[in-house]
């Protein structure tokens, strides 16, 4: 597929919000049935903000008129920010304006990130990151009147945490078994990407449907290497020399759940997981022993640690014998119904410092162009304030980070910071103008999937306009 130029896309945005182009059907029709490209190395990293990131408190309006309107509707929250240590970081003169490449595409409107997001702001200005504005679950494009009169189909179970998490990760509500990350991994495995398939789809934050494919099974790794059963090592009493070889081999067979044949399906699953845990974790740790330490310092916080684990896993990609990987990490605390002015700054510092460190580590490893990180969340939140917090919304703004990203751009169309406009479903719960498919498509294409494979992984792709050239 031939990508449209960035200029063409940006014009499309300023003209009417959505990208112009011939539509995906034309492009897909032209693609031949080839297998996914698995040359070189590529990794896709999903960082999920659990609870629903308040997009209105991440990317703020910067031009005076928009800022004033924002300050009016968010008066109660800004009062809260006035009370925090060091004074309000939402005061206009403390915001970090986004210049970027297409800063002039929005007429007189300007945008800014908060002070706590300085590291991400730097990445944006250095064209290592872009922002995708007002993106979220859609079944088909719709505006406010179509939302209200139900002439267009709404995504099911809007505003519900678990269902919208699932929809972001797997394009339908909770109960969906396969995520689009897992589908991408499936396609790579089908093209024999990885000699050791177990290390294709990796979570550092628990089991999530994003990573689940039909063949790609999710593998979980924690900090400080994969866990091992102490009793099986010579540190444990059972694995020590005090026991005979016969005893130790029986013990290994037991903990490794070898040669079991339970008939109960749950027991089968537990046996399989125990077996994989023992064998794969041993392989993983053997590879990890070869790792040289990074120069890059990761921040000492939860997400920093998790992204460091991903960075280390990428660093040992050669010994793990993989050429395509999909990763998932999450950070919680974003369900800011209350006390938002006190919780949001720390969360923003954490995510921006961790993501920036990850980007540096990728540069240090020389894989900056081969690793693309994107952020996601349950939903955005209301622009209207409930006292000292905000309630569940829909569309939100997200980041895409890495050397392959068309950096320094705000893709899509940031709606006005007021209520009752064309993209407002009520109280500033944004109706997305970009569907998740329009982010997933360019990421998958970059990852090496064919258009046919992308069509299969993203069945409603044709409902939407040509995705922006994010990567």
């Amino acid at each position, binding site marked *: 597929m031939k990508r449209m130029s960035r200029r063409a896309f940006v014009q499309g945005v300023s003209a009417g919000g959505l990208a112009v182009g011939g539509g995906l059907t034309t492009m897909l029709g032209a693609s031949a049935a080839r297998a996914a490209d698995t040359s070189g190395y590529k990794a896709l990293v999903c960082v999920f903000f659990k609870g629903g990131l308040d997009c209105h408190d991440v990317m703020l309006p910067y031009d005076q008129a928009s800022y004033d309107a924002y300050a009016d*509707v968010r008066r109660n929250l800004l009062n809260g920010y006035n009370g925090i240590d060091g004074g309000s970081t939402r005061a206009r003169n403390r915001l970090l304006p986004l210049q970027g490449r297409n800063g002039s595409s929005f007429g007189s409107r300007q945008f800014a990130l908060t002070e706590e997001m300085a590291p991400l702001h730097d990445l944006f200005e250095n064209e290592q990151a872009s922002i995708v504005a007002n993106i979220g679950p859609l079944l088909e494009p719709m505006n406010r009147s179509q939302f209200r009169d139900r002439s267009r189909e709404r995504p099911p179970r809007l505003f519900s945490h678990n269902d919208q998490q699932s929809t972001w990760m797997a394009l339908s509500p909770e109960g969906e078994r396969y995520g689009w990350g897992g589908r991408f991994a499936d396609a790579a495995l089908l093209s024999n990407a990885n000699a050791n398939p177990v290390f294709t789809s990796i979570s550092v934050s628990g089991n999530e449907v994003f990573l689940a494919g039909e063949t790609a099974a999710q593998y979980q790794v924690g900090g400080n290497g994969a866990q091992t059963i102490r009793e099986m090592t010579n540190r444990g009493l059972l694995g020590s020399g005090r026991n005979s070889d016969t005893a130790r081999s029986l013990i290994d067979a037991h903990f490794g759940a070898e040669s079991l044949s339970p008939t109960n399906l749950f027991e*089968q699953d537990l046996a399989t997981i125990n077996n994989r845990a023992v064998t794969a974790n041993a392989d993983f740790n053997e590879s990890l022993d070869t790792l040289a330490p990074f120069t890059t310092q990761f921040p000492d916080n939860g997400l920093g640690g998790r992204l460091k684990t991903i960075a280390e896993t990428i660093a040992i990609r050669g010994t793990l014998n993989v050429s395509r990987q999909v990763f998932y990490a999450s950070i919680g605390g974003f369900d800011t119904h209350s006390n938002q002015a006190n919780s949001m700054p720390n969360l923003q510092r954490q995510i921006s410092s961790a993501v920036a460190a990850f980007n540096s580590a990728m540069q240090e490893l020389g894989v900056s162009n081969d690793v693309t990180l994107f952020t996601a969340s349950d939903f955005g939140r209301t622009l209207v304030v409930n006292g000292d917090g905000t309630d569940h919304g829909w569309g939100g703004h997200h980041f895409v980070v890495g050397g392959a990203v068309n950096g320094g751009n705000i893709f899509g169309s940031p709606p006005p910071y007021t209520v009752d406009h064309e993209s407002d479903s009520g109280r500033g719960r944004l109706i997305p103008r970009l569907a998740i498919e329009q982010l997933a498509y360019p990421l998958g294409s970059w990852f090496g999937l064919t258009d046919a494979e992308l069509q299969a992984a993203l069945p409603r792709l044709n409902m939407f306009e040509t995705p922006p050239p994010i990567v």
Partner: protein
Amino acid sequence: MLRIRSNGEQFAVKQLVLSAVAVVALAACSEVASDAPTSSASSDDGSSGSTSTSSSGNLQTVAAPLVQEDASRFLVQASFGPTEREIDRVMRDGYSEWIRDQIRATPTLHLTKLNAIVAAGDEIERSSASDSFWENAVEGDDQLRQRMTFALSQILVVSDGPGSNLSDRPLAMAYYMDILTRNAFGNYRDLIEEVTYSPAMAVYLTYLRNQKANPNNGRVPDENYAREILQLFTIGLVELQPDGTIAPGAQETFENEDIVGLAKVFTGLSLKGGFRRDNPPDAYNSRLEVYPEHHSTDAKSFLGLTIPENTDAATSISMALDQIFAHPNVAPFVSRQLIQRFVTSNPTSAYVGRVSAAFEAGSFVMPDGEVVGEGRRGDLAATISAVLLDPEARQPAGVVADDFGKVREPVLRLTHWARAFDVVTADAGEERYLQNTSGPDRLSQHPFRSPSVFNFYRPGYVAPSTQTGAAGLNAPELQIVNESSAIGYVNTMSRFVRDDSPNRGNNVSGDAFSPNYLDELDLAEDPEALTNRLDLLLTYGRMSAETRSRIIGVLQEMPIRDDRVEEDRERRIHTAVLMAVTAPEYLVQQ
């Protein structure tokens, strides 16, 4: 005597069963025999993801265990773990009487213990409520009530985990735990009202000091509790049939406008003493108070009800809870989740239907003919009796289908071990490891400490890349099982099993959460007999041939030296117990 809305035939059949040891075929009940396939939709709302095939039409209601293994399995479902003593009691009394005895037993509460700490002049610690949980779970005589508390805590979720404003509020937690404990055999309608007025829930779902709208500054009421009380605590998101299935074309149960309307109801509540300040020391363990000036005076419309303008807070809350509780989803929504917590992840729709019917009727006829429940819709004593005494629950483990059962929750794996071996003291103040078992290197689960209001796992979770997933089965607990947590569990248990305390308190000279293996030590030189005993206590006679032969094989390789008999016997016990509690047949309950 009975107010039965449906399934009268089924109850009539059961009433014939009067013999204490009777085994009565229920095949006459056509509902059991013809378990209709359900919608394939799976959801968070407790609805069926698929239908178990284990209902074959030959279901039997069993009033009493025939063998000790049956009693042990019943106690795996109904308690924090079988003990020799409880197995004997179930054998003697039968299931029905055991349950009635448990319902009668004096509740072991939490707040009283924390207050006693204060009265003695000692400090309450952050973990004091959590410490009390372990103590009651392991040592409480009101086992079924304590299990019910734990099950309800996974529906009506509050959490004192990191990031929660409850992490330093043990009194609020203990007060909340007592609400669940006191109402465990009460009525669900009363329970959700007490929950609504609890400081813990108000803090957790952010309606403490929630205020009416202010058009002058654009403030609107917080929607958090309004949404989650509907989605997670009572009706779920999609219309359910009485048997928990989703009919084709089922609608979503509410729209965002309902949330906006209901949010107005939960305004004007705060701690006792004052809306913003002047709260006495016991404010967090006292019922919330209404502050009328902060309560919305608007009309409040939701779920087809409009509460007229200028209705006061208490009346508004009462009307709202009545309206919510009247929704036909409540019975199947709660019933299916309770079955999942006690018995099986994939109950048949017929099983859900029978438990729902008990919830609706507020009463249940036990296999021995006695009636439990007060006859008021939402009766939890009737509901839990229906869960545990259902023919599907009481089929012998040897005959259940391959998709029956559930992954044993990690917290229960620990308590089942602790009770089987009569841990000497469950005082978690002295075994600090018990103060946080959340990490994947521990249990990935800590009571009253889930990562969010969505619990540790979702009722509709289908695990990718698994056999259960391929069969379309729900497997909630598999959501916290992975390559890290599977091994974290083994390492955690190895410390406990060996009494190699992971983190014993500094001032503790004696035992802390120490197992008592006296009976097992007597069998150390008879590996066959020892294994049989472990099989009875831990796996109700279902230990696999492989596990059995591996345990015996290892033990036979471990010498008993003349000069170190005690030490070597102990090593054998530790090895055998650890192998038993890490075998798949222990990790799963059938």
